[in-house]
């Protein structure tokens, strides 16, 4: 708030002296800063919880305000690993539907998750 106030006050000061074009840029920038903080605050507590129960795999995804729960039958799910040019992506596929998982992980940890999840799925098969 202090940063925004200072920036806008500077813009108003110059506008009062005739250099009014500083003010819109100050407005844009304060808006960008606010947007960044809102985005960060909204997603700071995002998570994915992958639980392996009896005969099923449950993925709980918290994305901003929304918490969704996806259940897959253990017999009908498979883990897909895609090696894209820039990163590795993981997804669970079942009956024509696909759910991306491990979005909060870096490449090394995604591999680790894929390894552990893959081992569990193979044991269950």
């Amino acid at each position: 708030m202090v940063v925004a106030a200072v920036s806008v006050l500077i813009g108003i000061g110059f506008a009062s002296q005739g250099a009014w074009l500083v003010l819109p840029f100050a407005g844009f920038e304060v808006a960008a800063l606010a947007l960044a903080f809102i985005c960060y605050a909204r997603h700071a507590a995002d998570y994915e919880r992958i639980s392996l129960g009896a005969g099923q795999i449950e993925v709980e995804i918290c994305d901003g305000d929304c918490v969704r729960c996806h259940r897959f039958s253990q017999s009908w799910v498979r883990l897909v690993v895609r090696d894209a040019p820039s990163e590795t992506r993981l997804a669970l596929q079942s009956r024509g539907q696909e759910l991306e998982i491990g979005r909060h992980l870096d490449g090394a940890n995604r591999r680790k998750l894929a390894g552990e999840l893959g081992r569990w799925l193979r044991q269950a098969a």
Partner: protein
Amino acid sequence: MSSIAHDPTHGHEHDHHAHHPSGVMRWITTTNHKDIGSLYLWFSFIMFLAGGVMALTIRAELFQPGLQIVQPEFFNQLTTMHGLVMVFGAIMPAFVGFANWQIPLMIGAPDMAFARMNNWSFWLLPVAAILLMGSFLAPGGASAAGWTLYAPLSVQMGMGMDMLIFAVHIMGASSIMGAINIVTTILNMRAPGMTLMKMPLFCWTWLITAYLLIAVMPVLAGAVTMLLTDRHFGTSFFNAAGGGDPVLYQHVFWFFGHPEVYIMILPAFGIVSQIIPTFSRKPLFGYASMVYATSSIAILSFIVWAHHMFTTGMPAAGQLFFMYATMLIAVPTGVKVFNWVATMWKGSMTFETPMLFAVGFIFVFTMGGFTGLICAITPIDIQIQDTYYVVAHFHYVLVAGSLFAIFAGTYYWLPKWTGHMYDEGLGRLHFWASIIFFNITFFPMHFLGLAGMPRRIPDYALQFADFNAIATVGAFGFGLSQLIFLAAVLKCVKGGQRRPQRSGTVRTDSSGPCPRQRPTIPSKLHRLSSKRCWLTGGPPWTGDQTSAPR
């Protein structure tokens, strides 16, 4: 694409290896803070060489009186572009590179808060640089209005000026995105227990610098946009004939320009504050006072801008206010210098290359600070305005200040970044060559300025010939010395002795070398106690399922 459930053999061989995109795509698409830090640093070094070549051309022309090498119009373009390239292309991106590399490591964050925006804020810079350098090829050449782009001269320039304005906008957008990223990262992503007053001082100086950037970048954007509308859209912000005021441009520009000076020096203070304690084997003296001094400098930087404008005509009360306000900055700056010296006092000091550059920084930057005090005194400034004394002053602050700190930081953290030690012999040679040739170049400029030689001129009176010849010899020596730096960095990047773990030091950042993808702190992948449940993402978490988010 592979399916683990259907292919039991897949999925094991890469378990312990991160996937690395290769080739140019790795650098274009990277969101890794270390990659982006390296990109910033290499970009700034390339721009440093480009700006350096312009400087050497300027010095070659000034080797003796008369016009020998370039025409006056091109000389003016070179002085303008040298300043802009060095400020916006070399010094500022270099510090952002350090911030990208070090801040997440120092505060225990896995990456910058907005990794994709981080990528974007870097890749805007080469576009801006191409636009800036390409303006030499525009009809009429590049802008020749000086790096300050004063109206009405800048209103009369050719198409190169429009390219420059656009480039400044792009670089400003890049800086703002970088600043927002740094503020968000430092405020929100510190590891548990890392309170603000426990942060390494480099993080503090960058946090304050980021606030300064956020405060003043709209002012620069507004200033150059008003120039653009005056040039092409019939406005008269700075056109006296249309009711405008050319001096208003100077007020707007310097309201940005003076904090910009601190944007270029505060991260340097941070780097030096990391290095001095390490090589003195003592904690930093007066940590809290360093933080408050940095904040004071940043706040004071907003009320001193008109000391650049004493000769434009202002009331005596205004002159007195800006003179005293400027002199006041010496107090927090003095606190910093005192604390660095007190840190070294009775320390078990050694003088490896980073420490040499840090001590060199304190010695030569303090000289630049004192000449700044002289410039702050209105009656003296009126005499030396636009002379080589001012050129000497700001090069003592920006070259021996900012640039030496960049060298110090590079040598200090290069072993962490690469896993290899740099060549100490090359580093020491680079330091001694740099500091000797730097002083040969810029010290005589004080005498030239006091004798009345104006800046930004390609020809001069015979009485200035000797000192100019000395300065030119020094400039070529200084320029060539930087090839030693390039050799030292390349040698270290290619390999060499493994970096030893320093023991008994008080470094607050984590020990190196640093892998490209390291375990995140706090961990982003939690294995729950049931052994059959994973939790990814979320805030720092203790591992107790009942305290998991939501």
